[in-house]
């Protein structure tokens, strides 16, 4: 697991580090107006880069936060960055319902005080054939699932994004059916690679990247990694997901990164890593074959794409 960051940071230290970064950011901005506002990252990049694959390089904070697919803020890549200023990610609650011992609503702060925030450096592969390498901070989804106490009949997990058209201008238009929904099979959700991310580059999750809490499933196309989650539902049948509902011939429930299964719009054999000139080969399961291939050994991936 070369790319998997395994630095474990207790939540308190994590908060402190965030404070430190904010502080140093302010002083960096005071000290120099001309240099990049995020120059302070350079000093502690080693935290992230030590877990990188030799072929991978971190994408910059600027790249990660100005080129996003988050249709709640508009359909253009720059819209989330430009239009997410009014979004208020605090306070935040997550409703847990469906096949659980007791449906309940968790305060985000309460969830965070019960989990361990870790650094996870993951490749993110968009279905549009571009990719990035992102240093997330978050915790394993399995930790929250344990808190939620699902019944043994629960086979799937569904996630729902917040619906706030007044703060998310993209939702004022019916480009897709709001709210955005995604889902995972239970064993996918419990896989140690699957995380709920609350930050990136040591910052609290920026609004345009899915503040305050989002899913990251690194072996699946980016649209599976649903943002700004307000509800998690446990089900015994496969849930409907947004893109699959909109265009089932293009997007499947599984959406595993797979260079051998073509998409009618984009060849999935290659990808452009943001910041690179030439395309590179797309890896099976986005390079996480070792960790997740066993989940699909009985599944025809050309049928269940």
């Amino acid at each position, binding site marked *: 697991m070369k790319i998997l960051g395994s630095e474990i940071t207790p939540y308190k230290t994590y908060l402190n580090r965030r404070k430190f970064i904010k502080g140093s950011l302010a002083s960096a901005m005071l000290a120099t107006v001309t240099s990049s506002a995020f120059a302070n990252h350079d000093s502690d990049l080693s935290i992230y880069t030590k877990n990188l694959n030799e072929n991978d390089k971190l994408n910059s904070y*600027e*790249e990660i936060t*100005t*080129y996003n697919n988050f*249709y709640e803020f508009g*359909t253009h*890549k*720059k819209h989330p960055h430009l239009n997410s200023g009014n979004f208020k990610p605090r306070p935040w609650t997550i409703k847990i319902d469906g096949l659980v011992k007791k449906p309940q609503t968790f305060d985000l702060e309460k969830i965070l005080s019960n989990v361990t925030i870790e650094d996870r450096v993951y490749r993110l592969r968009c279905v549009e054939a*571009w990719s990035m390498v992102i240093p997330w901070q978050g915790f394993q989804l399995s930790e929250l699932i344990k808190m939620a106490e699902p019944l043994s009949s629960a086979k799937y997990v569904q996630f729902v994004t917040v619906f706030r058209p007044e703060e998310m201008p993209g939702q004022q*238009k019916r*480009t*897709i059916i709001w709210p955005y929904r995604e889902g995972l099979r239970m064993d996918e959700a419990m896989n140690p690679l699957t995380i709920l991310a609350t930050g990136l580059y040591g910052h609290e999750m920026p609004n345009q990247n899915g503040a305050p809490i989002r899913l990251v499933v690194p072996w699946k196309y980016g649209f599976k990694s649903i943002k700004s989650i307000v509800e998690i539902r446990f089900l015994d049948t496969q849930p409907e997901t947004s893109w699959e509902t*909109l265009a089932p011939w293009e997007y499947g429930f599984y959406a595993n990164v797979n260079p051998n299964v*073509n998409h*009618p*719009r*984009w*060849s999935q*054999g*290659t990808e*452009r890593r*943001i*910041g690179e*000139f*030439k*395309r590179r080969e797309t890896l099976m399961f986005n390079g996480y074959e070792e960790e997740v291939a066993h989940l699909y050994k009985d599944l025809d991936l050309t049928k269940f794409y």
Partner: protein
Amino acid sequence: MFSTRNFNRSKPVLFILILFPSLLWAYQFVNGNLGVNPIEKLMDELGLMALRLIIITLMITTLSNIKPLKSIVVLRRMIGLFAFYYVCLHFSTYIVLDHFLDIKFIIQDIIKRPFITFGFISFLFLIPLASTSTNNMIKRLGFKLWKKIHYLIYPVAILASMHFYVLVRADKTEPVIYMGIIILLLLHRIFKRLTRPQLVQ
């Protein structure tokens, strides 16, 4: 009443105005100012510009039916050739920058992906239009045949707008607007044909 001279005089200004975006994007591309995914951005901008110019050439024909604007038609060739210029840049960005001359892959892409098929056929149809654009060619072919060849602009426009429509993932407003304009312009031509007084043979 605008005379042919008025329109001819505006040509140099128009020439610079339409050329300018391509120079700007090239400059920005070389200097790394075209955003996070510059190849995609360059390709999108060039393609959109080409589609808009194609639509403008259709509009010019329609506008020239209005008496005071009759002479506007003298601008059509230049704008049409600029459309071809932008399509060529768009296509070569795709071939060279996006796929690095991986011809085998590109051929598969053109065959397999409907939106690229539409775009490619549209490009092919533009070639005879551009290459018969000189006065000399009109003379050599005769106006009737020349005009027939230039009816190709209709499939070009339709295919180009479909190329854009299929490419967009969810919010299809912009391509639908372009398609709407093209359909209106075509309907106007059909209407004109049907209501044209028949010449006695």
